[in-house]
């Protein structure tokens, strides 16, 4: 599809790769500043308890200790949507692992020793550890929920409850829809909390410059401008007083969106008269202090005709959001308009409740709730097909969103919206889908000891972002005619900078290697970007870069018009030159124009070429009380098809092949795009097969380490991952492109669950699908 472009659509290698393979790439993990202090944190040992007293006397007396802070010193509350989270626990602790006190000292050993000397007296409270306990509301995680500040109109905390936000979506009439159905079926599915597990743990360094309000933060964060914004709000600082610098990031996946260790680092640096302070999470803290992906219980009730046409659907999503709302209320909101999957549903009632519990809190995680909701919906679709005895492929095809359908928030899908039906048929043909195997085939597989099965699942996701989300780009031409580009988004390895450079090269008609993206975001220098989340950057950043490059061209042409004495509308550009459309020999090079065109006598015109481009998603709206509105910048549709083999005795699943198709509109860089798919599928397989937070009955996290909270290794890879990229262009996307960063993870667990049914005839309703769960289920089947 990309023959008409020269750089866009080509498989360029990532621009910063050489730094990464030589060990030269510097992460905050590698940073240190002269005199920098080190921090250790005292964590709550209880899931829910009152803090009766804290005694830091002995710790303070330890030589080398520079500052000790407790909640009493930090009367701030933070929060993106619900302002509910103290920097250090105040009055009470709400999850085991919550920071209670922090010590800054000359080295980690001293800080750790000091932490050991802090004495805290707690008075334990009953803990809320399940969705049901949260809903029952006997114990409140936030006893002050009625007083909390929050973004009104977007979130709906319920008084005197553990419901941080309750989103409702209503279209059509579900009662009528159920009445019109031949059958009504109900299912309940769930999945536990899991970890992002970036290889670089969270780390921030803050320096509060003494005698001024000025602060500098170096942090491993996805969203420097959000960090600045939230810090400014919490500490009452001017935005311009805060400088946030983000160098290379060792993985984020949503866990480094928002704000995490930065406020504590800043508070400590302030307490130490501006000496820089580093707060670095250990792997254990990464699990039990820093946020995870929220758990979910989904209940779905569907009315359907004999032929498989869905007439109504009612959904309850109950999110185990943990102790603080963070992003999980917004995850809950996104489920409100996307949680029913890419289906045309005329009658829908959907409730999405983000609940407070006394567990590690949830946040954004690649997929932003969609992996979770698709686990419910895409397993439910197969369960419906089984009950009706129709092919789950056909069932899906019959109900998918198509041109002219309305989404559940009332958006009309049009010819440029992308084609989920094509994604589904692409993966079905790739894995050779021909319906569920027969009971006899299944029995034969089980008898062989190795049962094979295939499965399908579709998906969709739009960026979950405020209606007024914006981004910007700045370009400057250098003396040699090369370009340096400043962007506000971070590149965590998704390849954003490489792709943006490709877009710029395409518009400017110049070689890619002459375009450099400044590899470090610095809120003092970089143009604004809301956050690097939500798979929206290729789209929004791409459009901003196009506009920025066009601005550069406009400036080049304005000066060239004078130099060449040709009207601007008769100028064209190519090969780093501006020339007359009819007489290309009349040209001037970009280089000659870069700093202003200089005549022989030294006289110069024009000036340094500095372009700017911005993009603000037009036409998006908030959702109304019935969840209706236009929240989606673009929908990226996709589908997975998988063939698996199950060792029926050990319960181990081997993925033989997984095909993943996405309608990306236009591939901007096939190499990086496929990289996103392969990496995302693998991460999805982690959620599918092994990842899970496990708690003791009193709410202690039992597996805060890689030892017992495993992520897949190279030996756990599928035999084959087949990325399939469809290109039905998005009219307003850059070159027609849509985002695909998160999507490869979504519905991977569903497709494995569906394939397991095909293989074994057993339906699983809870993730992860561990060898243990599978083997014991098979063994039960065998027992009379």
């Amino acid at each position: 599809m990309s023959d008409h472009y020269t750089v866009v659509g080509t498989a360029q290698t990532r621009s910063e790769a050489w730094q990464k393979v030589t060990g030269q790439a510097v992460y905050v993990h590698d940073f240190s500043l002269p005199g920098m202090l080190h921090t250790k944190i005292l964590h709550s040992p209880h899931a829910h308890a009152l803090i009766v007293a804290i005694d830091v006397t002995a710790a303070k007396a330890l030589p080398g200790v520079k500052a000790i802070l407790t909640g009493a010193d930090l009367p701030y509350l933070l929060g993106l949507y619900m302002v509910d989270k103290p920097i250090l626990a105040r009055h009470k602790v709400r999850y085991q692992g919550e920071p209670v006190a922090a010590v800054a000292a000359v080295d980690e050993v001293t800080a750790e020793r000091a932490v050991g000397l802090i004495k805290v007296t707690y008075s334990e409270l009953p803990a809320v550890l399940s969705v049901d306990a949260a809903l029952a509301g006997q114990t409140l995680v936030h006893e002050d929920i009625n007083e909390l500040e929050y973004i009104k109109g977007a979130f709906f905390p319920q008084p005197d409850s553990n419901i941080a936000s309750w989103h409702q979506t209503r279209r059509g009439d579900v009662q009528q829809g159920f009445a019109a159905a031949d059958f009504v079926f109900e299912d309940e599915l769930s999945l536990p909390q899991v970890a992002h597990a970036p290889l670089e743990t969270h780390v921030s360094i803050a320096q509060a410059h003494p005698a001024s309000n000025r602060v500098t933060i170096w942090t491993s964060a996805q969203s420097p401008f959000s960090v600045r914004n939230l810090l400014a709000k919490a500490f009452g600082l001017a935005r311009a007083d805060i400088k946030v610098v983000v160098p290379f990031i060792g993985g984020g996946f949503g866990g480094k969106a928002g704000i995490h260790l930065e406020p504590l680092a800043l508070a400590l640096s302030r307490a130490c008269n501006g000496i820089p302070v580093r707060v670095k999470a250990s792997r254990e803290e990464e699990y039990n202090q820093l946020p995870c992906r929220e758990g979910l219980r989904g209940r779905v009730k569907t009315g359907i005709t004999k032929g498989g046409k869905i007439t109504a659907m009612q959904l309850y999503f109950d999110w185990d959001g943990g102790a603080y709302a963070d992003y999980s209320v917004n995850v809950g909101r996104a489920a409100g308009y996307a949680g029913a999957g890419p289906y045309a549903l005329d009658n829908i009632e959907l409730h999405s409740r983000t609940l407070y519990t006394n567990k590690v809190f949830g946040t954004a995680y690649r997929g932003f709730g969609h992996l979770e909701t698709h686990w419910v919906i895409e397993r439910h679709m197969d369960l419906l097909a089984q009950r009706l005895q129709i092919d789950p492929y056909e069932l899906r095809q019959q109900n998918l969103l198509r041109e002219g359908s309305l989404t559940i928030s009332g958006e009309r899908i049009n010819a440029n919206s992308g084609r989920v039906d094509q994604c589904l048929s692409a993966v079905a043909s790739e894995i050779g889908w021909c319906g569920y195997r027969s009971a006899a085939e299944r029995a034969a597989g089980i008898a062989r000891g190795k049962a094979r099965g295939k499965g399908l699942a579709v998906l969709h996701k739009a960026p979950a972002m405020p209606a007024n989300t914006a981004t910007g780009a700045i370009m400057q031409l250098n003396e040699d005619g090369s370009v340096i580009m400043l962007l506000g988004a971070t590149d965590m390895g998704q390849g954003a900078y490489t792709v943006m450079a490709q877009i710029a090269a395409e518009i400017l008609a110049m070689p890619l290697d002459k375009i450099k993206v400044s590899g470090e975001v610095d809120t003092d220098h970089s143009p604004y970007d809301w956050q690097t989340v939500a798979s929206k950057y290729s789209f929004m950043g791409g459009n901003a870069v196009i506009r920025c490059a066009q601005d550069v061209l406009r400036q080049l042409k304005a000066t060239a018009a004078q130099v060449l004495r040709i009207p601007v509308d008769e100028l064209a550009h190519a090969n780093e030159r501006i020339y007359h459309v009819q007489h290309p020999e009349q040209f001037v090079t970009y280089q000659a124009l870069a700093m202003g065109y200089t005549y022989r006598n030294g006289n110069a015109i024009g000036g340094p070429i500095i372009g700017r481009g911005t993009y603000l998603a037009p036409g998006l709206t908030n959702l109304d009380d019935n969840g209706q509105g236009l929240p989606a910048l673009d929908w990226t549709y996709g589908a997975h098809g998988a063939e698996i083999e199950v060792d029926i005795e050990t319960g181990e699943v081997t993925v033989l092949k997984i095909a993943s198709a996405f309608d990306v509109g236009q591939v901007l860089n096939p190499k990086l795009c496929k990289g996103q798919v392969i990496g995302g599928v693998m991460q999805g397989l982690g959620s599918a097969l092994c990842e899970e937070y496990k708690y003791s009955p009193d709410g202690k996290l039992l597996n805060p380490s890689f030892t017992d909270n495993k992520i897949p290794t190279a030996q756990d890879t599928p035999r084959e991952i087949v990325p399939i990229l469809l290109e039905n262009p998005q009219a307003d996307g850059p070159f027609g492109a849509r985002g695909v960063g998160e999507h490869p993870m979504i519905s991977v667990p569903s497709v494995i669950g569906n394939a397991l049914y095909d293989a074994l005839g057993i339906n699983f309703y809870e993730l992860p699908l561990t060898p243990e769960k599978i083997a014991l289920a098979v063994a039960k089947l065998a027992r009379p």
Partner: protein
Amino acid sequence: MLTNFEYAKPITLTHAVQCLAEKEREVKILSGGTDLLVALRRKQVQPALVIDIKGLKELTALTYTPGQGLSIGAAVCVNRLAEADVVRQYFPALAAAARVLASYQLRNRATVGGNICNASPAADLVPPLLVYEGVLEVVSQRGSRRIPLQDFFTGVKQHVLERDELLQGVFLPDTTDATGATGATGATGATSATGMTNVTDVGGLYLKQGRLKGHDLSIIGLAARLNAAKQFRFAVAAAAPTPLRLFALEELLNAQPFTPALAELAAQAINLYIHPISDVRATAEYRRHMAAVFVRRAVSSLVTAGGKQDG
């Protein structure tokens, strides 16, 4: 940075045991360090003196003497076992276990002695060392003694070594000998069914189940061996507070006719002899299930191998 300790690397055994005899200070032996450094980091141990034993040549030797056996120095690293021809050929269950212990780079550091002395219920090398009827050689300033491996463990992370004692190595009697008897305790001394001289083990294997296919601690591990006299030996990891040799199961099987039916018998019986618990890694139910699966697979494969040998 780990907490304060002194580090010594003796190059003679005499010096090493002398260091260990120190009474006033807490002393810890450092072999590969893959358990010890984690414990130091987590402040589970805080020794004043750490003695690195990798400089002792007695502890780093791996020697096989035909007709006698294999002598493995305590500081021999796991990858050496996995790669050594003599181990692969004559002690295949041990080589198999060595190949699945932790990750490749960890196996370059982790040692046999560390695996034994760490006394984890899930120690992967221990079941094979048990089925090969390993005998530990222990030294101290007070002299030396030999301890059959099966008498070594007393509980989770507990064993019979005194604080001044050093594990020097483990000796495995040869699996190739004229009588088919296996020397150490528990052996029946029966002659080989085929009556051949100089026969070898029929085979040995180690089966391990983790939570995923990549490196993980054992949810359950089973070593099985069929010796030249067609006598079974079994031992398990992560199925009891200590790794366990399953004498009773062996007796049960060894008393039966040597047929494929033994596999099912073993699977039915194994759960009488193990005591797994439920923990964060697995439930006791799955451990029991897998013990049966593994012993069925192991016996069936060994019976097939034994049958082929006869044929």
